[in-house]
């Protein structure tokens, strides 16, 4: 499988990364090189195993259903590039 210019644009759009035409041009061979190298995984017979979900067997623990955090609005907002009146602000989303 290999990617073309349109696919690279599609991936960039899914990844929410702005790319220029020059960057797309450079990325096509770069990504194909890496994907071509990954193709060798196809040589392995994996029919007898399931995809790994946990590398070390682990049981998810439950904790008591109590509030453990909160009332830290200013700390949460402290690193926001734009915050106003206790909210994160973003460009207009709804027309």
């Amino acid at each position, binding site marked *: *499988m290999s*990617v073309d210019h349109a*696919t*690279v644009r599609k*991936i*960039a*759009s*899914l*990844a*929410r*990364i*702005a*790319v220029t035409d020059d960057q797309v041009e450079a*990325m096509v061979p*770069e*990504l194909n*090189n*890496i*994907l071509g*190298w*990954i193709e*060798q*995984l*196809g*040589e*392995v017979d*994996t029919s007898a*195993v*399931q*995809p*790994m*979900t*946990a*590398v*070390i067997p*682990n049981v*998810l*623990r439950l*904790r008591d259903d109590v509030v453990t955090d909160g009332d*830290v609005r200013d*700390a*949460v907002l*402290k*690193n*926001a*590039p*734009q915050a106003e009146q206790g909210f*994160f602000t*973003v*460009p*207009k*989303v709804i027309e």
Partner: protein
Amino acid sequence: MTNLTDLGIAAIRDGFKAGDFTARDVASAFNDAVAGAKALNAFIVETPEIALAAADQADKDRASGSLKPLSGVPIGMKDLFATKDVQTTAASHILEGFVPQYESTVSGKLWNAGAGMLGKLNLDQFAMGSSNETSFFGNVISPWRRNNGDTAALAPGGSSGGTSSAIAARLVPGATGTDTGGSIRQPAAFTGISGIKPTYGRCSRWGIVAFASSLDQAGPMTKDVRDAAIMLQAMAGHDPKDSTSADIPVPDFEAALTGDIRGKTIGIPKEYRMDGMPAEIEKLWADGTAMLRDAGAKIVDISLPHTKYALPAYYVIAPAEASSNLARYDGVRFGHRAKLAHGDGITEMYEKTRAEGFGHEVQRRVMIGTYVLSAGFYDAYYNRARRVRALIKRDFDQVFEAGVDAILTPATPSSAFGLGEMAEADPIQMYLNDVFTVTVNLAGLPGIAVPTGLDAKGLPMGLQLIGRPWEEADLLNVAYSLERAAGFVAKPARWW
């Protein structure tokens, strides 16, 4: 009096306890060393006042007889650990200026154990790299130079390259690293120091900037194995805030260092004998094998048949997890937001912010990860890689079931290369640096790098020991035995 910055963690701890020097003396000496080593670019933020405050507390605690395990010991912190009120960037532009309002579990445990912070150490951006050339804050330079009079800047390894450079240059006695595919062990091998990646789940990942969550582990990097044992003791342990953190007791790692490995079985995997491996690495490995044999271990040849598929599997799984983890950098809640043009909406804000904020290698991995997870390719790439990962782990399980206690391999395929020397190579050449280390992350095992020799260029080379899950104590002891036999003492001469 000895030069305090030549001392390791155990020597500082013991000398401070005995009253040979004060914690303030130690912190001041290391602060001066840090301030005088700008040429290495090992630090992103220096925090001399935090180191002094911890030292003053340690001096008070000694006076009142309430010493802690790391009282009087200043350390460096890889800039991937969130530190409250101290900028944490993951060496990226997108997190430039980010000042966490919380403390990572591992760094918090180190401070609670009495350690002080000398500063935040440079790294490859989001821990993606093997040479420290992807940091937004510039390359880290190794204190080592080739012995032929050439002054070319050498790579300290990566991603924990600020850590390895700072320890080798005696700017810190020890520091934290993180290891997703070899990011503790490869830089340790490049700079003649020790570094252990513990079993997945031994150290909490809470508060560490996430790269690939199923592979990431924190660990100590130090001048020797004893220091690694001491520092790991303080870092390890269950944390309810990380669901993959193991709720099992942490043994006394330092007490395990007897140096007695008689009767242990050490496996030598034939698949790690790569084509084109430099003769010096080959010899290093053979010498290390002989040292363990002479120490009374039984040496056996073993096979880990899926080894060659580890790197390609890693370069599906790690980018997939990274693309998901890095989705949080959206310019809304923290970090950089791009300046927008008139009429730009929220999608343009995301796209411009991430284009400006992520470096080239990070963008490449996010793109690969996005692709292998996308509809139609998920099974062919991501699920297949996870199946291969299961086979890689099974290889190790079978070897351990057959009675092998630890596995000896080279840590890296070569000694340190020069900064910029790989610039023209394709990315896969750089990825090959982790060929011996990445299997260990995929299988969740503990692995340690120990320096055991110098090559003809006068540069350090290291060996890797791989242990059974949760048996870091045993692994550290085998490493301790190897370290004693190898007697590696070389240090880079100061030029910076």
